[in-house]
C-alpha cells in the first residue's frame, strides 16, 4: 500500500475535525468499555481460578467412584496407601506439595444441642502453609500438628449455634467406615470464617488423624496436588493419569463448579455487552463516513475522471475509517490502562457477591492479547464500515458523480 493513500486518508479525516473528533471519541469509549469489562471479567476469572486451585489443589487424585458416586459408608471410595502415593507424587518436579484430605459428615454437639456438621480432616501445618490464609480466624488460633488432644476449628455461625468458643469442649458424632456410630470429644481451637456463610454454618476443620480415628480408618478421601506453576496442570494431569490408571486425576477446573458457572455467565454477559458496543461504534463510524462520502461525491467523480480506479478510492476511504478506528482504539486502550492503574493506586472494594460475606477489590486485568485483539477488531470493523458505505459512491457513473451537488 502506497503511503500516499494513507496520507490522503489522514488529510481527509481532518476535513471536518468536529465530526472526526466525535467519531474517535466514540471509538475510544467503545474500546475502553470493552477492555474494562473484559479486564474485570479476566481479573474475576484469575481470582476465582487461584482461589479454586488454592482450595482443592491444582490436581486432585482419588478413586474414580469418589468423583462420580455417593458413598454408602464413609470413605467407601477412599484411597489406601496414601503415604506411598504421596511420596511418588512429591518426586514429580512440578509438585510443590501433596495434601491429604478426609471428608466426613455427622453431628456436633455441645451436650445440649446437636447440629449437622461437615468436616474436613487436614494436615494443619502443611494445609495452612501451602494454601496461605484461605480463611479468617475470628477467635482462637489455627490448628497445629502434634496436639496432645483432638482439636477442631468451627465455622463462625456453627460456633454461635452451639454456643462454642475457643476452649469449649464439644462432641463429634459420625458413622465409621464399617457402619457403626462413633463419638469423640474434641476441644474448640478456633472460630473461623471462609467468607461463605452457608459453608460456615456446617464446616469444621480437624487434623487428619482425629478424622481418621473418628471414622476408624487409615484411608484418605483424596490427595490434593499443589504445583509450583498453574500452567503445568494439564501436562502433569496427563502424566499422573498415565502413571496411575486405577485412579482419577481431576484438575482444579473440573472441581470448581462455581468458577465454571461464573465464567460461563460472565462470558455471555460481557460477550453480549461487547457486541452491543461494537455495533454502536460501527453505526457511528458508518454514519460519519456516510456523511463524508456524500459530501465528497463530486470530488470522487473528479478523481474517477482523472483515472482513479474504484478500488483505489475504496482503499483510501477504508484507510480513513482505519485511522478513526485506530486512533480511537489506541486512545481507548490508554483510557483503560489509566483506569486500571488508578484502581491499583486507589482501590475500590466491590460488595460481597451473592452467598459471600466478604467483598473483594475492583481490579482490571489488561491482558496484552486481549488489548491487541480488541484494537485489531476495532480497526477492522471501522475499515469495513467505511468500505461498505463508500462502495456505492465510488462505483457511481462519473457523470452522475460530477453532477452531484
Amino acid at each position, binding site marked *: 500500500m*502506497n503511503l*500516499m493513500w494513507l496520507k*490522503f486518508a489522514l*488529510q*481527509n479525516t*481532518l*476535513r471536518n475535525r468536529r465530526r472526526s473528533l466525535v467519531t474517535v471519541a466514540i471509538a475510544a469509549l467503545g474500546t475502553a468499555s470493552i477492555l474494562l469489562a473484559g479486564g474485570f471479567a479476566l481479573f474475576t476469572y484469575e481470582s476465582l481460578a487461584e482461589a479454586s486451585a488454592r482450595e482443592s489443589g491444582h490436581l486432585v487424585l482419588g478413586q474414580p467412584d469418589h468423583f462420580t458416586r455417593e458413598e454408602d459408608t464413609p470413605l467407601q471410595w477412599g484411597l489406601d496407601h496414601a503415604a506411598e502415593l504421596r511420596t511418588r507424587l512429591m518426586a514429580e518436579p512440578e509438585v510443590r506439595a501433596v495434601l491429604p484430605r478426609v471428608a466426613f459428615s455427622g453431628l456436633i454437639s455441645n451436650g445440649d444441642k446437636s447440629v449437622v456438621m461437615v468436616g474436613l480432616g487436614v494436615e494443619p501445618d502443611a494445609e495452612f502453609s501451602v494454601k496461605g490464609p484461605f480463611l479468617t480466624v475470628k477467635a482462637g488460633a489455627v490448628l497445629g500438628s502434634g496436639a496432645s488432644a483432638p482439636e477442631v476449628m468451627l465455622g463462625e455461625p456453627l460456633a454461635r449455634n452451639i454456643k462454642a468458643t475457643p476452649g469449649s469442649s464439644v462432641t463429634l458424632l459420625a458413622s465409621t467406615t464399617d457402619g457403626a456410630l462413633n463419638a469423640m470429644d474434641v476441644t474448640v481451637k478456633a472460630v473461623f470464617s471462609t467468607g461463605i456463610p452457608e459453608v460456615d454454618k456446617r464446616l469444621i476443620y480437624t487434623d487428619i488423624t482425629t478424622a481418621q480415628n473418628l471414622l476408624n480408618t487409615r484411608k484418605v478421601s483424596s490427595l490434593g496436588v499443589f504445583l509450583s506453576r498453574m500452567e503445568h496442570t494439564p501436562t502433569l494431569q496427563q502424566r499422573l493419569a498415565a502413571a496411575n490408571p486405577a485412579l482419577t486425576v481431576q484438575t482444579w477446573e473440573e472441581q470448581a463448579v462455581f468458577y465454571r458457572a461464573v465464567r460461563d455467565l460472565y462470558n455471555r454477559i460481557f460477550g453480549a455487552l461487547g457486541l452491543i458496543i461494537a455495533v454502536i461504534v460501527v453505526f457511528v463510524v458508518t454514519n460519519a463516513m456516510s456523511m463524508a462520502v456524500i459530501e465528497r461525491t*463530486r*470530488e470522487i467523480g*473528479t*478523481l*474517477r*475522471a*482523472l*483515472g*482513479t*480506479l474504484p478500488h*483505489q478510492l475504496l482503499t483510501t476511504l477504508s484507510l480513513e475509517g482505519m485511522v478513526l478506528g485506530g486512533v480511537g482504539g489506541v486512545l481507548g486502550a490508554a483510557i483503560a490502562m489509566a483506569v486500571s492503574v488508578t484502581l491499583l493506586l486507589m482501590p475500590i472494594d466491590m460488595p460481597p457477591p451473592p452467598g459471600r460475606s466478604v467483598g473483594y477489590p475492583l481490579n482490571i486485568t489488561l491482558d496484552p492479547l486481549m488489548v491487541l485483539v480488541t484494537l485489531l477488531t476495532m480497526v477492522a470493523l471501522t475499515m469495513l464500515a467505511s468500505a461498505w458505505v463508500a462502495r456505492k459512491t465510488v462505483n457511481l*457513473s*462519473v*457523470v452522475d458523480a*460530477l453532477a452531484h451537488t
Partner: protein
Amino acid sequence: MAPSTSDAVVELHGAYKTYRLGAHVIPALQGVDLSVQRGELLALTGPSGSGKSTLLNLCGLIDTPDRGSIVLGGQVVDGLSEVQRTLLRRDALGFVFQSFNLVPVMTVAENVDYPLFIAGVPTAERRQRVAAQLEAVGLQDHALHRPDALSGGQRQRVAIARALVKRPKLVIADEPTASLDSHTADQVLLLMRERGHAEGAAFVIATHDSRLTGRCDRVLTLQDGKLISNR
C-alpha cells in the same frame, strides 16, 4: 464509419446519446461526427441543452454513446470496460472543470502530482515534472499552499497544470472560464493555448464565452444535439 485520420486525437462517428427523465426521452446527441486534430484548440458552443457537455463526456470517455463509435488515438474504445476506460483516461486524457475541482486537502503540488501518482510514475520523475508544470503556469511559489489560499485564476492554472502534467493527447475543458472575471479568463485561455502547443495536447473546450471562441483554432456549434456549424 469514416476512416481514421492519422493526426486525429479523438474521433466520433455517428454518435447518439439519449437521457431518460422519468417518462421523457431526451435526445442529447443525434448522429454527431467529430474529429479533433493533434494540438488543436477546439471550441464547442451552443445554447444550454444543445449537447455540449454530453459531447465532452463522450470525448472524455466518462460516458458511452448509445450508438456510434469513438476512436481515441487510433484505438476504438467501443466495448471497453469501465476499468479499461478509466485506465485510458488516466494515461491519455486531462480534464479542466468549471469549478476547478481541486482536492482541498491536498497542496497545489499534490494536486498536480496526483495524476502521475495514480499512474505509478516514479517519485523522482514526478517531483521534476510537477515542478516544471508549476513553473510553466507561474505557480512555483505556491506549491505548498492549499487551494483555498488561491484566487480563482490561480486555481484554474493549477487545474491546467494537473491536466497537462501527464502529457495527455487530449484535454477536456467544460466551461473553464465561467467562474472567472474577463481579465483572468483571458489569461487562462492564453495559458491553455500556450501550454497546449508546448505539450502537443489538443483542447476541446465547451464554452459560452465568445472571447474564448475567437481565440480557438476551430469552433463547432451544436443545437438540439446536432452539429450545425464547423468553422
